[in-house]
């Protein structure tokens, strides 16, 4: 009787501790989207089924190891076949799995439901950042890792959301179905936010579709989930889910800011205006390959500081940035940066780290070049 109590107490503490563990950060998040709860349910159901089968199987096994020890003079019996037992222990798991297949099919059908969405967002994976375009709204921006390199190299203390923070989060409305279209500009990436239970590969040359309907406002963080090269671990995803009105005002603001930026193209920009803005863009996008001081890491990533070709031939430099170099890691920034941003980063790279050519690249010049 006593051993039974001991076993019971042990079992209870095990289950209790596992509950505590599963709650905070040890288990799949329950998530905040309409489907993430169902997926969590499936996960926990199959998990507990496996635990039960495991306890039974290992129980019989350890019981036999303990009871039928040769050293205790256990005599081996001679049965070696019993097809009925075998049929039973094959059919039972088969039925359990068929039982699991039914809810799994239902959830999968919901995931694949292409019903009408109020908002379409195009998500494009690039080597080592994400670009978001609100289709039909003329709002699009790049989302780069915001964790400073110093924290990564251990020179500074690591922030709370280390490696899971971006400069421009994806802002989405709550309680509205958002349809995602995934594609990639170079290699395969995968867009994954655990709290939203959405994971989809971004394949170059093809488009994949998925959707989410977030139920609670909040900040949800995720990462790229398909090996895509050097900075695969450094291209996070941050989604700000906000109330519907707040989203509409934000979208209107961004639309107007984009329009105003487009207006500002033809006015004459000052050197330091462009330099200051260019430095921001350089550090968030270009530094990961060409290094913060522009020394690059040849032969893969050419140096920009003191690069004779760059300093002498401005046209060549502009062409490289706008059209990229096919077959290399240098992407085309033609429609990822607007003319003002292109002009800023070009002016910065032509005048920083001792390259001081003194030339200012005007947004109007770039805009005209893009419209040729």
């Amino acid at each position, binding site marked *: 009787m006593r051993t039974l109590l001991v076993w019971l107490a042990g079992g209870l503490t095990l289950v209790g501790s596992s509950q505590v563990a599963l709650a905070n950060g040890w288990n799949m998040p329950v998530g905040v989207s309409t489907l993430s709860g169902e997926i969590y349910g499936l996960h926990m159901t199959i998990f507990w089924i496996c635990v039960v089968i495991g306890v039974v199987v290992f129980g019989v096994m350890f019981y036999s190891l303990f009871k039928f020890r040769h050293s205790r003079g256990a005599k081996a019996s001679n049965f070696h*076949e019993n*097809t009925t037992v*075998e*049929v039973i222990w*094959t059919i039972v798991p088969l039925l359990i799995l068929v039982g699991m297949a039914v809810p799994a*099919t239902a959830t999968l*059908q919901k995931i*694949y439901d292409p019903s009408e969405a109020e908002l379409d967002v195009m998500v494009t994976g690039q080597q080592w950042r994400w670009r978001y375009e609100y289709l039909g709204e003329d709002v699009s921006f790049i989302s780069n890792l915001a964790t400073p390199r110093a924290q990564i190299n251990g020179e500074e203390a690591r922030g709370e959301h280390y490696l899971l923070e971006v400069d421009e989060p994806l802002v989405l409305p709550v309680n509205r179905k958002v349809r995602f279209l995934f594609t990639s500009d170079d290699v395969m990436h995968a867009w994954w936010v655990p709290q939203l239970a959405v994971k989809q590969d971004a394949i170059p040359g093809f488009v994949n579709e998925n959707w989410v309907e977030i139920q609670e406002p909040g900040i949800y963080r995720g990462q790229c989930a398909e090996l895509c090269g050097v900075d695969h671990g450094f291209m996070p995803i941050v989604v700000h889910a906000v109330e519907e009105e707040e989203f509409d005002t934000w979208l209107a603001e961004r639309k107007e800011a984009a329009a105003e930026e487009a207006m500002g193209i033809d006015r004459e920009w000052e050197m330091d205006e462009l330099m200051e803005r260019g430095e921001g863009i350089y550090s968030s996008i270009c530094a990961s390959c060409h290094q913060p001081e522009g020394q690059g890491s040849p032969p893969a990533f050419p140096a920009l500081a003191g690069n004779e070709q760059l300093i002498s031939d401005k046209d060549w430099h502009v062409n490289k940035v706008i059209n990229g170099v096919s077959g290399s890691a240098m992407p085309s920034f033609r429609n990822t940066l607007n003319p003002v941003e292109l002009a800023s980063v070009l002016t910065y790279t032509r005048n920083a780290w001792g390259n001081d050519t003194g030339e200012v690249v005007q947004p109007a010049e770039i805009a005209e070049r893009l419209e040729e």
Partner: protein
Amino acid sequence: MWEVVKSVLAAFLGVQREQQRLKDFEKGNPVAFIAVGIVMGAVLVGLIVLVASLAAG
């Protein structure tokens, strides 16, 4: 022939009696088992595709 099909189905389930095994190995030639196995595999695949397309609706 029906004997071979029954054995292959038992194999897919993963359960078989000893004396059935002796009989199968005794007179059945392996090529027949492989051929029926592949055919039954294809039938199983067809069945699953049917169920999947029905479920997909």
